[in-house]
């Protein structure tokens, strides 16, 4: 493989480093050669090699009624326990249009904010459960 070499000092197999970065709505992938301080694009040796991106995504949008793919039975990407908070935000957006009902908008915005906090906790725990603190007891 281009860019690989044997480190004669440590007698270990080593490679230059492949790195990634983002720029102009694209991901850049190149091999960094720290000795020459240069970046090299993938060449024929890497052609067809798989890149796997792990990422946070936006929620899939519901299609509107004038679309052929509109479905009343479509469901949100979020787990069911968070759907109420999505609805709360939509209700708040509706109340924002009525100046006399801004307090109601505020109420539903706060409900949404509570949902954001719960959602962040859920995402942080990644379904692995909470860390439980066990208090030591001196016998």
């Amino acid at each position, binding site marked *: 493989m281009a860019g690989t070499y044997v480190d004669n000092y440590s007698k270990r197999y080593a490679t230059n480093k492949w*790195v990634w970065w983002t720029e102009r709505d694209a*991901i850049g992938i190149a091999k960094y050669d720290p000795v020459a301080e240069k970046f090299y694009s993938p060449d024929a040796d890497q052609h067809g090699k798989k890149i796997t991106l792990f990422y946070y995504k936006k*929620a899939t949008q519901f299609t509107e009624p004038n679309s052929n793919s509109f479905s009343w039975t479509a*469901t949100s990407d979020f787990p069911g326990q968070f759907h109420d908070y999505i609805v709360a*935000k939509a209700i708040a957006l509706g109340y924002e249009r009525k100046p006399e009902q801004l307090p109601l908008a505020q109420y539903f915005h706060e409900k949404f904010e509570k949902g954001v906090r719960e959602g962040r906790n859920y995402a942080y725990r990644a379904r692995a459960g909470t860390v439980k603190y066990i208090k030591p007891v001196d016998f």
Partner: protein
Amino acid sequence: MKLKEMVELVQQHHSELGVTEIVKMINTAQEEYSQRTRMLERATQFDLDGNNAQRYYALDESILEIKSVDMEGADGSADHVNIPKLVGRPVRRDLT
């Protein structure tokens, strides 16, 4: 909860709004929720185009933030291994 139930819940407060408008508001809510909670995680794959020495690959609009990247054969083995994120950008730009 199905879309129909969500729309009906909003209509209990805003009976004057049409379905299209409510769906738009639900979509706005969903977008903000996904951006702020970073709850939805996915993985996707693509192939490197080494024959054209392609360095940049367009990102899908649905991607909010890349968590990590694996590359097949990055360490000389056949494995898919994690590659590090570059801090900043290469000094010499290449637009391929």
